[in-house]
């Protein structure tokens, strides 16, 4: 079946199987930042923004996204023009292996889009679905808070 959607600002028409999951469709469409970590909605490595909501793309049928606006990390910023969150992740050492970064950056962006002045608790809550085995989360939380404070300036 045909699927019409916007990926990172570009209108796309994709041919998909009815049972295809968004994760696989996005990776096949070239968005390799969307990572598969568990395939059961537990790790958040596949999180993308669907109409502004951060969701696990492994638990979303691609067919659910007809007309949807999808944002992955590729659309958040580029090495030339990184998003403040991406810069903050680097600055604070919130990236180690980086496999979970795309998902957690998406979740962090969703938070700041809704709440530009989050508290530590807000950040902990917003990122609670993005497992990271490398960093222990401390620096990730610092990074999000720092990006938020930069956004205010």
């Amino acid at each position: 079946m045909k699927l019409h959607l916007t990926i990172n600002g570009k209108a796309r028409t994709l041919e998909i199987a009815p049972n295809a999951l968004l994760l696989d469709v996005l990776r096949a469409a070239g968005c390799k930042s969307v990572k598969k970590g568990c395939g059961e909605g537990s790790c958040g490595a596949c999180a993308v923004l669907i109409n502004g909501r951060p969701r696990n793309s492994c638990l979303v049928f691609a067919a659910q996204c007809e007309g949807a606006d999808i944002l992955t990390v590729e659309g958040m910023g580029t090495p030339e023009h990184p998003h403040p969150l991406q810069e903050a992740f680097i600055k604070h050492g919130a990236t180690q292996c980086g496999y979970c970064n795309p998902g957690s950056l998406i979740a962090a962006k969703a938070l700041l889009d809704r709440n530009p002045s989050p508290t530590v608790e807000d950040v902990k809550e917003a990122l609670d679905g993005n497992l990271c085995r490398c960093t222990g989360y401390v620096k990730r939380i610092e990074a999000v808070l720092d990006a938020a404070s930069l956004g205010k300036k």
Partner: protein
Amino acid sequence: MLKNLTHVHRPSTIEEACALLAAPDCKNIALAGGTYLAESSDTTIQGLVDLSGLDLNFIRETSEGYAIGAMTPVQDIFKSKLLKGATGHLLKAAAGRIGSTLLRHSITAGGNLVSVFPWSDLPPALLALDAEVQIRKGIPKRTVPVATLLEKTPREFLDKSELVTEIHVPAYGATTGTSFTKFAKTANDYSLITVAIRITVLQGLIRDVRIALSGCTKKPVRRPEAEALLKGQTPTPERLANAAARAAQNLDLTNDFRASKEYRSEILPVLIRRGIEDALRQIAA
């Protein structure tokens, strides 16, 4: 993976959706958030009926309380500014303990209720609040208490072509307190025991009380006998403990790899007692 899935329908009206679900020649299943179906390997499912185009994503105030659209992501309930008071407290607490933020953006109120699992967080809260659901079968509709819906399983209760479209939750006044306890190994773990409490105290006497449990039983349950022990009484520590103990009795508690039956039975009265105490503190506050 739904191996034999051939169609995904995107109806724009409830009538259309119900008609698709009624299709005799094709097994169509309602698709809400999708978190359950995306992982399912049910080979009998041939079609999905995507409910996202039915305008069922809302939280409204009504004369009796609140109406919550079945397709409302539970994250919206958790973060709602509209939901207030004892009802709001319990609904938000329950919704906020579902899965993780990412999952809460996918999981819907209707989906969490209709696909009820032993550990689902919203159903016990709805039980404690005496919530009702509006069920549509095309144009015709009926309103049913959540307690009735959960007597068997919602899927058994509902006709093939019926859809839960709204959840109606009464609002309670300042004399009512609520509490929600999810006991689990980690914040995102499935519940080992969930306790939802609503208690109304007038002039020092308990006028009304609901004790609803899940996680430790096959499906969410209310504990009317224990509730009766409290009704009309002053809430002394002894009475609370007694009622909590009673609430924990005569239950077929789950024994699984996550926790033994014995353990669950041991801490259940503690969690119920603490839940009631928390709800009472709510009133005081």
